[in-house]
């Protein structure tokens, strides 16, 4: 009997050792919502500290949320393209909202950066990554396009290259155009390299 208990214990210990060994993936950022799900309203402050809800900033035909950064060269490579996107679609009822979720960049940094790069669309400061976590955002720039009822239609890159001379696919604009034309979004997700969103340690 004692022998049996010892053997059982040994197998149990081995199983625990194997399980510990088999633990593989560290997932510390929530997964993004699936395409088609509705994004719930949220409240974040702008760079002057005034609180805004998604409901108060959204466009009548849709909203583009873009996680951006002050120091990331990839995000900065898109400054002009993001501003042009905001200008091009404002009159067509789609609003662009920037979100800075980097713990290493203050509201004052974000405000100064927006002024020096002529970014006129609203930029919110996501202290604590509340919205970044809700949307599973990991990098800058990373875009989310919501329709008029906040349904997620597109998630991913703005286009295929941070070098504007190499751009040959415009997934975000394609999503906006398709939606404005009443058509389904042709490509609902697309990846690109970018800077990690700096979450607090």
């Amino acid at each position, binding site marked *: 009997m*004692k*022998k049996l*208990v*010892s053997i059982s*214990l*040994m197998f149990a*210990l*081995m199983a625990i*050792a194997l399980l510990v*060994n088999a633990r*593989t*993936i*560290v*997932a510390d*950022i929530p*997964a993004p919502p699936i395409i088609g799900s509705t994004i719930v309203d949220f409240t974040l402050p702008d760079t002057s500290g005034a609180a805004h809800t998604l409901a108060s900033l959204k466009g009548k035909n849709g909203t583009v949320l873009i996680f951006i950064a002050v*120091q990331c*060269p*990839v995000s900065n490579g898109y400054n002009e393209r993001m501003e042009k996107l905001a200008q091009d679609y404002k009159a067509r009822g789609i609003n662009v909202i920037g979100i800075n979720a980097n713990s290493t960049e203050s509201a004052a940094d974000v405000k100064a950066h927006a002024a020096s790069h002529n970014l006129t669309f609203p930029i919110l400061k996501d202290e604590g990554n509340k919205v970044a976590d809700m949307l599973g955002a*990991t*990098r800058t720039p*990373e875009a989310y396009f919501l329709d008029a009822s906040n349904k997620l239609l597109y998630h*991913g*890159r703005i286009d*295929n*290259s941070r*070098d504007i001379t*190499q751009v*040959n*696919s415009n997934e975000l604009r394609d999503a906006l155009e398709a939606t404005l034309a009443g058509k389904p979004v042709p490509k609902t997700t*697309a*990846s*690109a*390299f*970018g*800077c*990690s*969103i*700096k*979450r607090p340690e």
Partner: protein
Amino acid sequence: MIGSLVVMVSILLLTFSAAAQGKTKPKPRTTRAATSPAPVRAVNTAEMQALLKRDGSRPLLVNYWATWCDPCRDEFPELVKIDKDYRARGLDFIAITLDDLADIKTEVPKFLRLMNAQMPVYLLNVSDPEPVINSVDKDWGGALPATFLYNNHGEVVYKHFGRVKADELRAEIEKVMGPEKVMSNE
């Protein structure tokens, strides 16, 4: 009963501790002498995917980085140390940079020299990064840095997005190397 349990636990602990410390015959290092970094080679999607293939002999650590990425630069000294500590014990390590092709002979080697880096470094030169990102990992959106550890069969056993935690990564490397060696020596 207690005596036999103590013996069993001791045997198990000794086995895993030996595995963790790598007290097994290491494979000889086959790379060049440690002086200056090897030239950085540009690769396309297919060539990069071929680099990740394993033949069953050695596990592989892969780090995706760029000189323009601050957390990538911050974590690089730790990765150089890890390369030095584990390569002789049987770990392959490649670093894949997402720098522009224009920087392959300037900014990239300059940084590698500064870091005293010896691991092979490749520059991914693609017009559309999506096929690579999707083929590497379905959960990866392309945020840099990103670090993946493969076992010797090419299966991802650990991944981390953002600045790596050196202690955590070392523990995972010990795990992927230790038990495999013990089993292969039996």
